[in-house]
Every structure is written in structure tokens, then in C-alpha cells.
């Protein structure tokens, strides 16, 4: 209960921080939409994330827990069994189910100033991994490709986006922001062209 309240509080702080950290020009643009609209967008995102995590936890509780000193076979079985369960439970999942269209717009809006100027150039250089070659196809519910390294997510990006429970992580695949379920190694949802 306290944890839920704390998380709600932290998310509220994040919403405020997100809007406060926007540069003036962007902030003015953002203010064309009422702050309440952004708050409602983020609240909806949080609600959907919470529902995903509740499902994740429920399904994960039906398979053997991973020991802290596990074997590769245990790790592999756990990851793939959990992925299968989530994929089956969300068999009709599609892009935008977790990150709604409004939230996608807000994510791009929030990230835009972070990727400006010299700071932004450094950020892009760190995120856009030269080791990712060829076409990477993103698919909701699909397994994160084994051959594709995970991007770094700079701390400055993480503090600008709503906090996530540990069952989900933000990652980038090129300019696309994905929600990765690291326990199941599957992509829960994504935002195309999250930054330019």
C-alpha cells in the first residue's frame, strides 16, 4: 500500500518534472494543451503499465521461481515459459496498447529538448549503437532479438519519463523507444521515432 502510494507520488513528481524541464519554446507549445491533459495521458499510461505488471506477476507466479544461483537451463526455461504465458494472455496485443497515441506524442515532446544541442548529440551517439546493423523489426509481444545489443538509456532520459516497475524497462532500438519486459525478454510496446 505504502509502496503504491509512493509510486503514485513519484510519478506525480515526474510529471511535474517533465513539464518543468521543457525549454521555454517547447514548454509554450506544451502549454497549448492543458497540463491536465498531459497528466491524464500519463495517468492512463501508468494505469496500463500497472495492468501489464499485474498480469506479468500473476503469470510469473505460476512457474517455478528462479533461484539466485540458477543454471542456464533454469534461466532459459523461466524466460521462455514466462514469454509464452504473456504472449498467450496478450495474443491480441498491438502497438499503442500500453503507450497510447497521446502518450507517444508526449514522449516525443518530452524527449525533443533532451536531444538538442551538444548534449543531445552526445546522447544520440551513446544510444545509436554502431553494432546494430540491418533492419530490426519491432513486434509487440515479440522476443527481443538475441543478436541486437541493448541500448544504453542515459540517466537524463530516465529521469524525464515516468518511472517503471522493475518488470519493464525503457530501451532504444535506433530512434524507437521500446518497453522491454526483461524477465520474459519480449517487447511489450514501442514508440516509433521517439527522437530525431
Amino acid at each position, binding site marked *: 500500500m505504502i509502496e503504491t502510494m509512493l509510486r503514485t507520488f513519484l510519478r506525480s513528481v515526474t510529471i511535474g518534472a517533465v513539464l518543468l524541464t521543457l525549454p521555454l519554446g517547447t514548454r509554450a507549445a506544451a502549454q497549448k494543451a492543458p497540463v491536465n491533459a498531459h497528466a491524464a495521458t500519463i495517468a492512463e499510461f501508468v494505469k496500463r503499465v500497472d495492468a501489464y505488471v499485474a498480469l506479468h506477476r500473476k503469470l510469473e507466479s505460476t512457474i517455478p521461481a*528462479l533461484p539466485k544461483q540458477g543454471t*542456464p*537451463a*533454469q534461466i532459459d526455461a523461466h524466460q521462455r515459459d514466462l514469454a509464452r504465458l504473456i504472449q498467450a494472455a496478450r495474443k491480441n496485443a498491438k502497438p499503442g496498447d500500453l503507450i497510447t497515441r497521446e502518450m507517444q506524442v508526449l514522449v516525443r515532446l518530452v524527449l525533443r529538448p533532451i536531444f538538442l544541442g551538444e548534449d543531445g548529440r552526445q546522447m544520440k551517439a*551513446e544510444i545509436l549503437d554502431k553494432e546494430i546493423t540491418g533492419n530490426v523489426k519491432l513486434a509487440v509481444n515479440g522476443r527481443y532479438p*538475441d543478436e541486437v*545489443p541493448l541500448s*544504453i538509456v542515459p*540517466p537524463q532520459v*530516465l529521469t524525464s519519463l515516468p518511472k517503471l516497475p522493475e518488470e519493464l524497462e525503457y530501451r532504444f532500438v535506433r530512434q524507437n523507444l521500446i518497453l522491454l519486459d526483461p524477465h520474459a525478454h519480449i517487447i511489450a510496446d514501442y514508440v516509433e521515432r521517439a527522437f530525431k
Partner: protein
Amino acid sequence: MMRILRVPSGIVACALAALVWCVSVDTARAVQQKPAAPAAPAASSQVALPNKPDTLHFAVIGDNGTGEQAEYEVGEQLLTWYNRFPFPIVLMMGDNIYGSDRPQDFVKKFEAPYKGLLDKGVKFYATLGNHDSREQRYYKYFNMDGKLYYSFKAPKEDVRFFVFESSYMDQPQAKWIEAELKASNEKWKIAYFHHPLYSSSMTHGSTVKLRQVLEPLLIQYNVSLVLSGHDHVYERLKPQNGIQYFVEGSSGELRNGDLRPGSRDTAVGYDTDRAFVLMEVDGDNLTFNAISRQGTVVDSGVIPRRK
């Protein structure tokens, strides 16, 4: 071709010490290209590992998990050196298992190359790289106990290792790092994680945005040594704000010639073959030898701890 840059010695090094604290190396000059027998005495230009029985010995490998021949050869070289310089622990800088990590991959890319060391009871302590599945934290031989970031006390000497997850430095981790560093009373604080805060490699280079968050904590809480991988070279950097940084990302992968020529930050670099590092903490000093796949010492020196 081996890339060697001369490092300051004697008076110059003392001058450096007056500014911060010095890396008292007088090494890394002409390094013999021919393989050196591990038992052979160190050349006069090299600093030999003291190899005392009661000091802390450890090895450092990074970006190793390819499952290819070169990784196996580094594994054999590690075992050869182990027989002369027994080290109870190996620190892994990440990219422990490249690509697929099915059970057979753990064997091919980790258990088989280091079988000799595992059989002798050597413990590996991993950090995760960008090529590693997050669930590797549950793998028994990586000793992460299911944690993405953790710390542990060394079996000898007054040393604590701090292991971070550098690809995802969120607020909870940053807070944990500060609390953990603050609570540590050990004389030696050694941090390691995959992405280097300083690197002269052309492929990735310094992780500047991460540095903005981590470096103030490392300085404030008196971390003496920071080890990373990610760039597939060996590089010892000149001390940065009083902290000694190493990049060791060439224990399996290699980017030949990737070090930027003439980088002001490089003390010594080696980017023409695979490598690993052996270290020994003896009181207030840490002696290191960086060793190539052929067994040649390509860099060595002594680092005093920050006080």
C-alpha cells in the same frame, strides 16, 4: 602493431602526485612481441606482480563471451598465469555471452573457455553488458545473486568491489550507489561496470552522459579505481580527477587499431590483440600487469589508493 605511449616517470610522476595522486608507473616501454613464458622474471622495464601469499590477487576480463577461438586462448593463458599467480576471483566487465544465450551458449561462451579456472574454484563476478540478457544475473557462475547491481568484499585485504549496471542508470540505482559508497569503510573502493566513463576508442569512446551522474559520486566517496569494458581494446587512462580508469574490453572481442592516435587521455593502450589484466592489492598499493593473448606483459605499474 602495438600502440605504446610513454608514461611519465620519476620527477614528472612526482609532480603529478603533487597535483592529485600519482600512478607510479615506469613501464610500458618497448614490449617484446614474442610470447613470454609466464614463469619468466619480468623484464627490467616491467613492474612484476609482488605475488605475495597474503595479498589480494584478481583478474579482469571484458567483452569475452564470443565462444570463438580467441576467447579460448585467453582462457588458456589465464590458467597458465593462475598456476604462477593464483587469483581467487575474476571480475567480468560485461558482454559475457554474446548473441543467443541458450544453455549450450553458456557452455560454449563461458564454461568451456574457463573450465580450468572453474575447476580450481575461481569465482567470477560479472557485470552486465549491452549484449547480455538481464536474466544472466541469476546464473550461478556469475555470482550476482539475482541483482543487477551489487557490491562485495574481497576475500583478502581491505577492499570492496562495487558493480553497477551502466546501461540503465535509473534513480533507484543511483541512490543505491551513493548509499553503498557512503556506507563503505574499506580502504580500497573499486568500481566496475560495462560502459567506460573515459575511453579513447573511436567506436564508442567515453560515455559522457553517464559520467555526469557517476563521476561526482566516485570522487566524493573516494573510489580509487574504475574498470570498464565495451570498447574492444585495453587502455589505461591517465588519472582523471584523481581516479585511475582502465578499459579492458578485449578478452574475446577485438577492434584492431581502434584507439584514437595521440589521445591526451591515454597512458598506455593496446589494441592489436586480446588481453586481460592481473591485479594485486598489497596494503595501500595495487600492482597490475596487462597481458596479451600470447602471454606478453603489455603494460604494468603500481597504483596507490586514494586517501
